[in-house]
């Protein structure tokens, strides 16, 4: 999951005021947050348009305070902050000040502070972060951030603004500790800002005087007066809190909004059609506003109590997805055997229409898996949620930010070549030997795992340190207020407040590494049909002049064909990285540190820097996305892919995404078989599925006539996108995947 976001510069005056507020409270992080946010809001809030009946959009300025987007805490978007792009005509004096401010934030942004806090050894192994590295040459990178929170929006809606204020007051009356009181004071200020934002929108909406704005005015008046009593008010309050906290995963909205929806529908205050219109605007708002790997809305699943009302919202959400063709929000359906079957039936129908949503998560497998992976009880595990690209967390209880990222194929490359890139020779990892020095396959395996460990240690350290710095610099008060157990403990999210402070390690190149190891074992060590020197030479020259050898390496068994030996290697690689990551986390204070086998287009981007690999992949080609087979390697039919994908152990990681591309004709002509196919996959232990239903002809046609295909959605990995919006490399990667059915 990435967090790059479009920056809207607000200019010198804003930056000056924000910086002054920051400097004025350098000794008190709670007052500093309040002061900086008082500058930031409502300056970054986007006023409603005449047709809007829902408000709550924000922009991200060149400097600001944010939980996730823009950067970690106090961020400064330097790439968008140069003199040329400054929107104002600046005097020489102003320019000087502008430059000084920039220098100040270069030192002072929280992300930099977080990186600076790493040990010297960690910095030696990871000289750059994933964001600051101009090119992704190394095997692993730290990502300083706090990403993927899913707040307790039910608490927000149940209490409303004044209820939140009372809850904070009540707690303040119970604690004497100065630090805790300061935190609770910041929480009060955060509630004030929430109210302030509602008032700001009320004022702007009143000036519009359209039918829609009248409805918006009523909703805003409602949430200022009382806790949300209608569906519209609930949605409105949620959106305000999301904009202010800069979080963008919505959690179990069916539980939060189901009761309000049903109350309105049953009382005749709201028609189904009107509810759909509200949802459409809500979806459109999400789609316009935020980054494409987030905006999860979760419906369905265990642990919802009486789910009748929630189910109604779930059906509404799926119908909205069906009516719109948008890459966001990432609607996600959890399901289990005892659930209302209408939900899953609706899901298959919507997926079959090429919407890429909802994504499907099988609670029968995932709940026990989360129980084991996170070390929590069943009731807690039932509150698991995927966020962003598919990382698992416990709803408003755990933080599982992916602050580590590792490329297993690059680690194998490093292990084969004395810690150096095969194509350029630059250093990419530790020198543990070279393929020519490993007499047995086990020696190669040891060097590979040694390289992975070389990165895991500092990555786990980074995961811990980044939270420590976030905790000591940024209270994130509003988010903390909506997270267990911050209020109870009187501590902010990353400073001991969150119940489970954990982390995740994004892994890439898992399948390429495993398929490469399979081929090396067979052709280099078992049959000795290829010498180690010949393979190294072929890889260094990107298979140039070694076509016959490449054909042999390509012909070795590959993951995705339900081939036991090939799949076993993927499981071996999987077991190792999952256990090793967890073990590295166990050396720290983290509650958990777990692998996520997710994907965004980093399989393509990092693939560009990864040399030719022994699975037959060429230098620069994309890595296989997530837990999917390599491009064109799955040649045995859809059940074979699904069976392979169901093999890696789900109880030792925090999420793995399964992408499949299916021809449009399959669900259209055989809707029942389409559903049965996936149901069987889930019955045999499949954890989840992300399905792109499209035809190759459409994709090719869309390249030629993009204007005709604005609704053509594809699943890139952990996110969906309009195919025509993707960069050419990623488009090619999507096309290279096997189309089934």
């Amino acid at each position, binding site marked *: 999951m990435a967090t790059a976001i479009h920056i809207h510069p607000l200019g010198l005056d804003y930056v000056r005021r924000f910086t002054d507020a920051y400097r004025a409270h350098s000794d008190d992080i709670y007052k500093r947050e309040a002061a900086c946010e008082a500058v930031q809001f409502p300056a970054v809030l986007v006023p409603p348009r005449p047709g809007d009946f829902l408000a709550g959009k924000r922009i991200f300025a060149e400097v600001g305070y944010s939980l996730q987007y823009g950067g970690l805490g106090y961020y400064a978007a330097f790439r968008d902050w140069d003199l040329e792009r400054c929107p104002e005509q600046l005097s020489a004096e102003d320019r000087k000040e502008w430059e000084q401010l920039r220098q100040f934030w270069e030192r002072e942004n929280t992300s930099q502070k977080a990186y600076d806090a790493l040990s010297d050894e960690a910095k030696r192994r990871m000289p750059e972060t994933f964001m600051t590295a101009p090119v992704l040459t190394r095997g692993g990178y730290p990502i300083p951030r706090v990403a993927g929170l899913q707040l307790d929006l039910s608490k927000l809606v149940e209490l409303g603004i004044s209820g939140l204020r009372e809850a904070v007051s009540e707690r303040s009356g119970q604690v004497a500790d100065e630090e805790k009181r300061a935190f609770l004071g910041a929480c009060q200020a955060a509630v004030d800002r929430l109210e302030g934002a509602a008032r700001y929108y009320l004022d702007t909406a009143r000036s519009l005087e359209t039918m829609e704005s009248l409805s918006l005015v009523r909703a805003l008046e409602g949430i200022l007066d009382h806790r949300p009593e209608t569906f519209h008010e609930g949605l409105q309050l949620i959106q305000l809190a999301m904009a202010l906290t800069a979080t963008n995963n919505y959690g179990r909205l069916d539980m939060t909004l189901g009761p309000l929806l049903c109350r309105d529908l049953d009382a005749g205050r709201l028609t189904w059609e009107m509810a759909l219109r509200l949802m459409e605007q809500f979806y459109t708002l999400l789609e316009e506003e935020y980054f494409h790997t987030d905006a999860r809305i979760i419906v369905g699943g265990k642990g919802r109590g009486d789910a009748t009302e929630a189910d109604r919202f779930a059906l509404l959400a799926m119908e909205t997805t069906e009516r719109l063709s948008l890459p966001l929000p990432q609607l996600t359906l959890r399901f289990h055997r005892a659930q209302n079957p209408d939900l899953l039936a609706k899901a298959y129908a919507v997926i079959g229409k090429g919407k890429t949503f909802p994504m499907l998560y099988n609670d029968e497998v995932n709940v026990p898996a989360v129980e084991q992976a996170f070390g929590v009880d069943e009731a807690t595990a039932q509150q698991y949620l995927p966020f962003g690209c598919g990382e698992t967390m416990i709803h408003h209880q755990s933080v599982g930010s992916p602050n580590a990222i590792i490329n297993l194929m690059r680690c194998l490359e490093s292990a084969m070549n004395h810690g150096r890139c095969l194509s350029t020779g630059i250093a990419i990892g530790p020198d543990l030997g070279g393929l020519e020095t490993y007499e047995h396959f086990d020696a190669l395996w040891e060097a590979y795992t040694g390289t992975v460990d070389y990165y895991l240690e500092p990555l786990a350290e980074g995961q811990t340190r980044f939270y420590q710095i976030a905790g000591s610099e940024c209270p994130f008060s509003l988010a903390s207020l909506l997270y267990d157990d911050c209020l109870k403990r009187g501590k902010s999210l990353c400073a001991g407040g969150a119940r489970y402070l954990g982390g995740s390690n994004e892994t890439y190149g898992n399948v390429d590494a495993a398929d490469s190891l399979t081929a090396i074992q067979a052709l280099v060590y078992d049959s000795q049909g290829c010498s180690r020197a010949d393979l190294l030479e072929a890889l260094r020259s990107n298979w140039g002049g070694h*076509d016959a050898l490449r*054909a*042999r390496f390509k012909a070795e068994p590959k993951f995705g064909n339900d081939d036991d030996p090939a799949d076993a290697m993927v499981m071996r690689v999987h077991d190792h990285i999952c256990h090793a990551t967890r073990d590295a986390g166990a050396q720290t204070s983290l509650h958990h540190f777990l692998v996520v086998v997710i994907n965004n287009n980093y399989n393509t981007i990092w693939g560009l820097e990864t040399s030719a690999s022994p699975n037959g992949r060429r230098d620069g080609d994309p890595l296989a996305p997530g837990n999917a087979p390599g491009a064109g390697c799955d040649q*045995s039919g*859809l*059940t074979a892919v699904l069976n392979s994908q169901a093999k890696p152990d789900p109880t030792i990681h925090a999420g793995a995404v399964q992408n499949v591309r299916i021809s449009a004709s399959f669900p259209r002509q055989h809707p029942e*078989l389409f559903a049965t196919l996936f149901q*069987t996959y889930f*019955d045999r232990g499949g954890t989840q599925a992300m399905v792109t239903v499209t035809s190759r002809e459409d994709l090719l046609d869309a390249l030629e006539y993009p204007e005709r295909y604005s609704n053509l959605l594809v699943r890139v990995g952990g996110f969906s996108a309009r195919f025509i919006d993707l960069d050419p490399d990623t488009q090619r990667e999507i096309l290279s995947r096997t189309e089934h059915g």
Partner: protein
Amino acid sequence: MTRGLITDIHRASVVDGPGLRTTVFVKGCSLRCVWCHNPETQKGRIEPAIDRGVLTPSEAEALGLDGFPETAEGTRAMLEVIQARGLDVCQGQLSSGALTVYGREVTVDAVMEEVRKDRDYYVNSGGGVTLSGGEPMIQPEFTLEVMGASKAEGIHTVLDTTGYMDRGLCASTLEVTDLYLYDFKASEEPVHQELTGVGLERILGNLDLLATSGARIWLRCPIIPGLNDAESHFQAIAKLQQKYPAIERVHLLTWHTMGLAKFKRLGKPVPAELPADSVEEVTKVRYREALVAAGGESVEVF
């Protein structure tokens, strides 16, 4: 251990009988249907095919494949060179993916291992295994063993057949076949001979044998505009169905151009009488109506 020559095993097939199926494409066929959409399964031996659009000039030069005219004869001559040089050698050198080798030898055990992997999909969907081709009964020992082993393990079996085989051989399929997808391609002897290269009589005789021996049959009729879409043919299909209650369904498989690319790659001239475009939806409706009007029942058009 019995071995068979196949082109492919396709899993999760939804077009080769009921449910989700594993389809084994057996290589070799006595018929030479003008419209054959699996021409790579006709010959009973391993053979190459080449996509000349993908072949790079340097590859062509390295293997002495340049200079051949862009005609079916030219492609055939190229394929002969490839055969002579050895398929393995050529495959190693043609990294562009221009060369496809059709056909691989497999044991019954290996096939069964693959078939078993999707047992739960068959159970949940009412699917099973399908032997197709080619004509699966051109390798009777292999086909009967796979079908028999499947049936013994409780896996539903389908035989997708041209019906062109000895009567005795046909009778031997009864015991191991749960459902026949039985081809019926033309209703008049000379037309059948012309379109498929073999006579009709034997096929009708075997159909009679199966239909009167308790078999379940889905009749599969390729319909090619201008070749066998006359009113009289639909009437003949309906008549067969009336005669044999064993024919539970009729599938009209309308012409599509998807197989033509394979003709080209195999160096086979595309017969001039084949339509240039796939059959459109309106025509499919018309075919269906024609058959229903003639008395056809349980008709599906693909």
